[in-house]
């Protein structure tokens, strides 16, 4: 008998009406507000063990020996495992298999997993883990990404060199010549700190050993099949013996693209023959997933006196930390989108992803485009100021329009013109002026800390533009699979939609039901739990699931509809007059039969970037969001209160207004976090603030009201004309807020997050 956890992901009934374009209730909403929804940390099985991971305290060290004997003898402990116990291939990774399942002879970052313990209580497991004796020879960590990349004398993090990827982009005329012809030249170096996804649901899951020697895994992930393709070889199992079910996901934002506890829990379960649950606590979570790459970016722009950009040159260095993760693609994004959606006749960008002994970095919402956006938007403001032009006007003069080429030569198509978006943004009403008397303390910088009653407080306004690629780029054959089943249940036509796509909070379960209802005209739609019994859906990242899994559900529904019409004709001797008629007669036409269709949806092919020039149609779709920030800054204390954020975004087609607004709000909030507070502080390769006490994310007091203007310029290649929407607002809100602080304070501010000491001048 296979064991099933006490709480498992279940089928979700969606509300009985509501097709594409409507704000429907989430099918999982009731479960989530009653506490019944089964998140990956909620799973429980009688007799299960708790797994704990021993991690390296050092960012770089050789391991001389590991002695597990004392830990193993600890009462209650059932297994202690090291790299020697990895049943199959000992390395994994998204793009390069460079990461050991458990450290082998050396550690390359602080927090690298070294050993595993399973015991009957989490505290027992923790105490036993503390008894594992690892003899480390501590080495000096390599922490300067620039040096790691360019200094030939620098030691290597991995044998094959420290540069994971260098991608140049060379567009138009010669930059040196263009420089000679520029009237005004500005240059600056920018920095972006390490941002964390800080999803609230910690990494967790349950592994249940199967009777066939395989394993059942209940985990929270963004791409189940990518997990599977990495897990199975490490466990030495064929893929069909690793059965995966998506447990409830407590947010992701890129942080669940890489594996965390999956292989570890499976190893412990296979060794002990018992179910094993692993739940990271918050501190461990900061070490348990990759972060947003910190960046050092040197930019130089030239323009003519009348406000036309003539060249842009940029060097972007992204510190990928100890393992590659998705660094190669992050570099591709930073390079291809490195100067934003502007028309510039001569461009040279060099983006580098580098290995160091800093925390590993990979996917986070905005994926390489965020870092560059902060730099190029800061440059746009800098140049506008140097020319004495209004920042919006300057952007409008240089905005790329549909039909214009980006730095990679890719031509913008089927999207809202940026200049017009900026015009709409500027025309949006402004929040009321702060009135000098009688203001609420809670609305001032410093809030109820009562640091000011308005003295020293100045208002500022800033703008930001961001462009993000939607779906996977650079020639990747990106696809999703959907299975749609139509049958009569209790006399009523009922549709079951089954995919392996990760619902991470974004509302894909709602959208799948809306699409099925629109395409098939039935009321009752049920969403099956996501598992690997159906083909890959690709990742819930790159703002791609509405496009890709939405597209897959659509084509599977079309196949079901075709079959339904054919059956109608066979039984009634004529084609149905309409979808409604076909559905009306379904009970008699279908009887006990079932229509069950599975389809794959692929987006149009893209191209790899040329390794020398970066030229290519590398992106599937592009999306722009523009933000205006209004801030109050206490320039004496360096405290910032964001008063309002307004955004204009082109989404192609509004599929579900409520979820869409939620995505824009949430993305904007993460951009605010990067602008003002969020940074993993690292010194000598060690993380100084792995807790929500010291790593701050925006609270409801930090977030201002948000005004949205959503445009629908359909993309004819995308299902329903939609454009991915989750990431672009994360790009543009950060530079808008920093520009507003500059406007209020007159300071240059070249680094995010902006800290009080940067404004008050005490650093």
């Amino acid at each position, binding site marked *: 008998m296979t064991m099933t956890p006490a709480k498992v992901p279940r089928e979700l009934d969606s509300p009985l009406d509501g097709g594409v374009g409507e704000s429907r*209730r989430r099918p999982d909403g009731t479960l989530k507000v009653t*506490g019944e929804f089964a998140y990956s940390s909620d799973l429980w099985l009688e007799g299960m063990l708790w797994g704990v991971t021993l991690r390296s305290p050092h960012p770089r060290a050789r391991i001389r020996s590991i002695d597990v004997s004392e830990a193993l003898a600890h009462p209650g402990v059932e297994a202690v495992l090291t790299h020697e116990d990895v049943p199959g291939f000992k390395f994994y990774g998204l793009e390069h298999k460079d990461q050991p399942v458990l450290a082998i002879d050396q550690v390359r970052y602080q927090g690298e997993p070294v050993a595993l313990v399973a015991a009957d209580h989490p505290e027992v497991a923790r105490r036993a883990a503390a008894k594992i004796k690892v003899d480390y020879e501590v080495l000096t960590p390599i922490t300067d990404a620039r040096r790691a990349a360019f200094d030939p004398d620098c030691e290597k993090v991995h044998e094959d060199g420290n540069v994971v990827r260098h991608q140049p982009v060379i567009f138009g005329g010669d930059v040196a010549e263009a420089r000679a012809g520029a009237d005004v030249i500005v240059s600056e170096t920018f920095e972006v700190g390490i941002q964390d996804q800080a999803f609230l649901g910690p990494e967790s899951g349950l592994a249940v050993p199967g009777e066939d020697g395989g394993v059942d895994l209940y985990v929270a992930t963004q791409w189940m099949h990518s997990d599977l393709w990495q897990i199975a070889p490490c466990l030495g199992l064929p893929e069909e013996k690793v059965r995966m079910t998506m447990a409830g996901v407590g947010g992701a934002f890129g942080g669940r693209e890489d594996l965390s506890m999956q292989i570890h829990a499976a190893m412990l379960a296979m060794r002990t023959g018992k179910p094993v649950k692993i739940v990271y606590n918050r501190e461990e979570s900061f070490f348990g997933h990759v972060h947003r790459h910190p960046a050092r970016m040197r930019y130089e722009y030239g323009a003519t006196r009348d406000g036309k950009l003539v060249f842009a040159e940029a060097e972007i260095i992204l510190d990928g930390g100890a393992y590659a993760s998705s660094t190669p693609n992050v570099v591709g994004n930073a390079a291809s989108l490195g100067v934003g959606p502007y028309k510039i006749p001569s461009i040279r960008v060099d983006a580098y992803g580098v290995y160091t002994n800093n925390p590993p970095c990979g996917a986070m919402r905005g994926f390489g485009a965020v870092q560059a956006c902060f730099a190029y938007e800061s440059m746009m403001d800098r140049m506008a100021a140097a020319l004495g032009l209004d920042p919006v006007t300057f952007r409008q003069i240089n905005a790329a329009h549909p039909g214009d080429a980006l730095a990679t030569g890719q031509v913008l198509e089927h999207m809202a013109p940026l200049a017009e978006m900026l015009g709409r943004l500027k025309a949006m009403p402004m929040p009321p002026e702060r009135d000098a008397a009688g203001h609420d303390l809670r609305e001032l910088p410093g809030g*109820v800390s009562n640091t000011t009653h308005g003295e020293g407080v100045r208002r500022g306004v800033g703008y930001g533009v961001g462009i993000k690629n939607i779906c996977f780029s650079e020639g990747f054959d990106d696809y999703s699979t959907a299975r749609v089943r139509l049958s009569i249940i209790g006399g009523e036509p009922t549709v079951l939609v089954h995919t392996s796509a990760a619902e991470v909070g974004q509302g894909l379960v709602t959208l799948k039901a809306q699409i099925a209802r629109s395409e098939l005209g039935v009321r009752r739609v049920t969403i099956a739990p996501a598992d690997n019994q159906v083909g890959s859906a690709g990742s819930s990242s790159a703002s791609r699931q509405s496009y890709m899994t939405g597209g897959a559900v659509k084509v599977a529904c079309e196949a079901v509809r075709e079959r339904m019409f054919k059956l109608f004709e066979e039984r009634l001797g004529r084609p149905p007059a309409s979808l409604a008629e076909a559905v009306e007669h379904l009970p008699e036409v279908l009887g006990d039969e079932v229509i069950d269709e599975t389809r794959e949806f692929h987006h149009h092919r893209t191209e790899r970037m040329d390794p020398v020039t970066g030229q290519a149609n590398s992106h599937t779709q592009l999306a722009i969001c523009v933000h205006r920030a209004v801030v109050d800054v206490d320039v004496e204390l360096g405290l910032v209160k964001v008063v309002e954020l307004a955004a204009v975004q082109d989404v192609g087609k509004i599929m579900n207004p409520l979820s869409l*607004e939620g995505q824009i709000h949430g993305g904007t909030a993460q951009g605010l976090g990067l602008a003002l507070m969020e940074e993993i502080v690292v010194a000598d390769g060690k993380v100084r603030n792995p807790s929500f006490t010291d790593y701050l994310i925006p609270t*409801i007091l930090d977030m201002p009201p948000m005004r949205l203007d959503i445009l629908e310029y359909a993309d004819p290649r995308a299902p329903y004309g939609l454009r991915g929407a989750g990431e672009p607002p994360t790009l543009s809100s950060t530079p808008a807020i920093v520009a507003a602080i500059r406007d209020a304070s007159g300071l240059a501010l070249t680094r995010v997050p902006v800290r009080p000491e940067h404004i008050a001048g005490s650093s």
Partner: protein
Amino acid sequence: MRVNFTVNGVEQTADDVWEGESLLYVLRERVGLPGSKNACEQGECGSCTVYLDGTPVCACLVAAGQAEGREVRTVEGLADGERLDPIQEAFVECGAVQCGFCTPGLLVQAHDLIERVPEPSDPEIREALAGNLCRCTGYEKILDAVRLAAARKAEAGR
């Protein structure tokens, strides 16, 4: 040790509780009520908020032994049978739930707010919910939901 307490109106006994265990752990792992969430276990996120004798607390900061003989109400105890509490209903309706991990704690905290303050202003809502982190929504829809639930409650009381 053994801990006896009442959860959502039902008497519960948890055996073999370690002295270091929190109320949150006992709720989630020993009495089968994992609705309250474990996002930091340090009192920083509010995901574990429950009522303890009628006052919202972070269950991760309460030692299990402190709950002895007391009354706990969790997110699982907000609805009246199948009927959702107005604050639960409003959260679903307004799109205040995305991943939903913050939701149980926010619901208890917001429930308490509109019990105490009939029609809270925006600054009052923000202040009351300042200890509850949400990473997904940017809080706009959460404000909408609290306003809606408060208005409905006021309407019903009129």
